[in-house]
C-alpha cells in the first residue's frame, strides 16, 4: 500500500506553510465565531464545527485551481473557506440573512459557492459522493480539464453511496480525489465500533482505487501528498483515495459536550492540534512569535467583523421563500399572504 513515508512534512517552503497556517487560522476563527453565535442563539439549526480538522481543508484545497470543484458535508465550513468562499457571505448564511451564500435559504449545512467551484455542502451523510462523481463525469463528457475533490467523514463509509460512488468513479475512470476525514466519530458514536473489516482504505482498494493515508493534523504532509496526487489525477490517472486521520476537537454539533468520549484522551488532542503543530514548525523555520500573533489576530478580527456584520444584516425578503423552487408550478407570492 502506498503511504506517506515519502512525504516528510519538514521540507516545506516557509512561505507556503505561512499561507497554509493563515488559512487554518481563518477557518478556526470562523468556527469559533460561529460557535459563539450558535451558543448565543443568534444562529439557528445545527452547527457542525470542524475545529481540529483544519489541516485537511487547507492542505487539500491549496493544491486546487479555482476551476476545480469540491463537494463537502454538514461539517464543511473549512472546505468552503479553503476553496475561496467569502467568509462574510458564509456568516450571513449561518445567520439566515440577506447576502448569504444562498440568500439565507440554506444555512450552515447547505452553503454553496459555484463561482469558486464549491458545489455544495450536504445535510445527508455520503450524499455528496455521487454528486462529486457526477460533476467529474459531466466534466469528462464536456472535455473540461477539471479535478473534483469529494470530502466526507469516516461515518460516510458505511452508507451505500460510498461503495456505489467509488465503484462508479473507477468504472468511468473519473478525475476525483476522495478525501476521507477520519475524525474518529460517526455523529456521537465511535466509528471503529460500527465499521467492519479493514476500514476506508481497504474498501477503496477493493474497488480499484489507489488509496493513501496521511497524518491529517500535519498540514504540510497533507499539502505535500495531495500536491503529488492532483497532477496525476488531472493527467488521467483515474480516481484516488486519501484517508486523513484527524480529530474532532468539539462535539458533533455546537451544543454537544461530547461526554461519550474519554475526556483525558480528548483533552490531550489539543496538544496535537494542527494549528499548534504548524505554529511549532513555523517557529522552527524561524518565524517570529510576533508574526504568528499577527496572523492570529488578523483572523480573529476578520471573523469578529463578519459576525458583527451578519448580526446587523437584514433577513431575506419574505418572497424569497417561494423563489428558485421551479420555473413552472411554484407557489405564487402574494404580499398579503
Amino acid at each position, binding site marked *: 500500500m502506498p503511504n506517506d513515508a515519502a512525504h516528510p512534512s519538514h521540507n516545506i517552503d516557509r512561505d507556503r506553510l505561512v499561507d497554509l497556517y493563515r488559512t487554518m487560522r481563518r477557518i478556526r476563527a470562523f468556527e469559533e465565531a460561529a460557535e459563539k453565535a450558535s451558543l448565543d442563539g443568534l444562529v439557528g439549526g445545527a452547527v457542525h464545527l470542524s475545529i481540529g480538522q483544519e489541516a485537511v481543508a487547507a492542505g487539500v484545497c491549496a493544491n486546487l485551481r479555482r476551476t476545480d470543484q469540491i463537494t463537502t458535508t454538514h461539517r464543511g465550513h473549512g472546505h468552503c473557506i479553503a476553496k475561496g468562499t467569502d467568509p462574510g457571505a458564509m456568516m450571513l448564511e449561518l445567520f439566515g440573512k440577506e447576502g448569504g451564500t444562498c*440568500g439565507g435559504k440554506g444555512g450552515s449545512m447547505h452553503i454553496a459557492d459555484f463561482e469558486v467551484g464549491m458545489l*455544495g455542502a450536504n445535510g445527508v451523510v455520503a*450524499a455528496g459522493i455521487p454528486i462529486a462523481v457526477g460533476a467529474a463525469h459531466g466534466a469528462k463528457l464536456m472535455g473540461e480539464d477539471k479535478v473534483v475533490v469529494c470530502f466526507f467523514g469516516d461515518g460516510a463509509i458505511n452508507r451505500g453511496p460510498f461503495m456505489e460512488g467509488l465503484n462508479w468513479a473507477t468504472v468511468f475512470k473519473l478525475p476525483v480525489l476522495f478525501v476521507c476525514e477520519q475524525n474518529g466519530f460517526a455523529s456521537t458514536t465511535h466509528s471503529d465500533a460500527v465499521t467492519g473489516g479493514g476500514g476506508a482504505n481497504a474498501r477503496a482498494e477493493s474497488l480499484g482505487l489507489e488509496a493513501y493515508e496521511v497524518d491529517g493534523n500535519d498540514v504540510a504532509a497533507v499539502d505535500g501528498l495531495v500536491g503529488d496526487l492532483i497532477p496525476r489525477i488531472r493527467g488521467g490517472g483515474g480516481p484516488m483515495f486519501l484517508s486523513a486521520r484527524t480529530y474532532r476537537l468539539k462535539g458533533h454539533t455546537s451544543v454537544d459536550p461530547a461526554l461519550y468520549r474519554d475526556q483525558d484522551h480528548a483533552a490531550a488532542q489539543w496538544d496535537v492540534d494542527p494549528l499548534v503543530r504548524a505554529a511549532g514548525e513555523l517557529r522552527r523555520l524561524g518565524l517570529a512569535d510576533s508574526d504568528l500573533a499577527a496572523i492570529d489576530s488578523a483572523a480573529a478580527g476578520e471573523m469578529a467583523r463578519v459576525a458583527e456584520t451578519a448580526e446587523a444584516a437584514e433577513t431575506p425578503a419574505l418572497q424569497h421563500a417561494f423563489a428558485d423552487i421551479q420555473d413552472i408550478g411554484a407557489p405564487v407570492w402574494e404580499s398579503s399572504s
Partner: protein
Amino acid sequence: MSVISYQEAGCQAVAEEMRRDPSVWALGEDLGRGGVFGQYRGLIDEFGPERIADTPISEATIMGASVGAALVGTRPVVEMRFADFALCAVDEMVNQAAKARFMFGGQARVPMVIRQPSGMWRSSAAQHSQSLEAWYTHIPGLVVAAPYTPADNKGLLKSAIRCDDPVIYIEHKDNWALEGEVPDDDDFLVPLGPARLAREGADVTLVTWSKMVGVAEQAAELAAEKGIDMEIVDLRTLWPWDQDMVFASVEKTKRLMVVHEAVQVGGFGAEIAATVAEHMAHVLVAPIRRLGAPRAPISYAKPLEDLLRITPAKILATALEQMQR
C-alpha cells in the same frame, strides 16, 4: 406525420434532443443494448457509449451522479428501468435533485429527466408494477409528467429534456406498443403543464392520465351506448396540473370523476377532487367520485392482479351512478 409506437416516440425524442444539444446524454442500466424496453434502441450507434452510458446497477448513484452532472451544466436523461427501482434513489431525487436550486439560493439548476416506466404489465407483481406518481407531486422542486399518446410521449419528453428543473417522467409499460400519429418535425414540442382534451362530452368530466386515458376512452364508448356523453381530460402533466381545463370542463358537465391506476388512498385524484370541491361545490350536481386501486400490493396471479385494475365497466358503473343525480 408518421405512425409510430409510444416506445419509438420516446426514442426519437431522446435522439433529436441529443442531436440538437451536445450536453444531453442518457445513462442507466443496459442502455447500450437499447434499454430493457427498447426505448433507447440504436442510439448507441449514433451517439457512442459516452453519451448512451451503460451504468452499474447503482440506482442511487445513477441519480446522484446525474445531479452532479446537471449541476455542472450537462442534461442527463436518467433511466430508472422500473419506477419501483427509483425508490433506491429517493434521497438523490427528493433531497438533492429537487432541492439543490432552492437550497443554494438559485446559484445552480438541475436540468435532468428521470424516466420511470410504471404500472401493471404482464404479471410483474408487487415490485415491478407500481404507479407512484402521487409521491412526486408532493415534492417542491419536481415537475411530474405522465403522457398517454405516442405524440405526447415525444413532445413532452423533448420539453422535459429542455426543462431546467428536474422532471419525473412516467411512461406506462403497457403503452410501449401503442401506435399513433406523431409529427416528424424536430421542433415538435408539447409544453409541460397544459392538459389535452381527449374527448369532448357534455355529461360527466373524467380526469385521468397515462394508460388510463385509453381505458377511459373505452368506457366512454360504452357510456355513449347508454346515452351518457363523457368528456375526458388527459392531464399529461400532473405537476403543475391544468386547473383551467379541468375547471372549464366541470363548469360545463357539473360532474367530476377522477380515475387513476395508482392506489386510491392518497392518490393524486384526491388533490384534484379536493381542489374542485373547494372551488366549485356550487356547480356540482353529483358528488365527486374517485376511482383508483385498492390499497393492496399488486399480485402476481393474473385474476388477483386484474382485481386491482380500473376497467371500462367500473368507470361506466360510476358514470351511471353520477347520472342518477
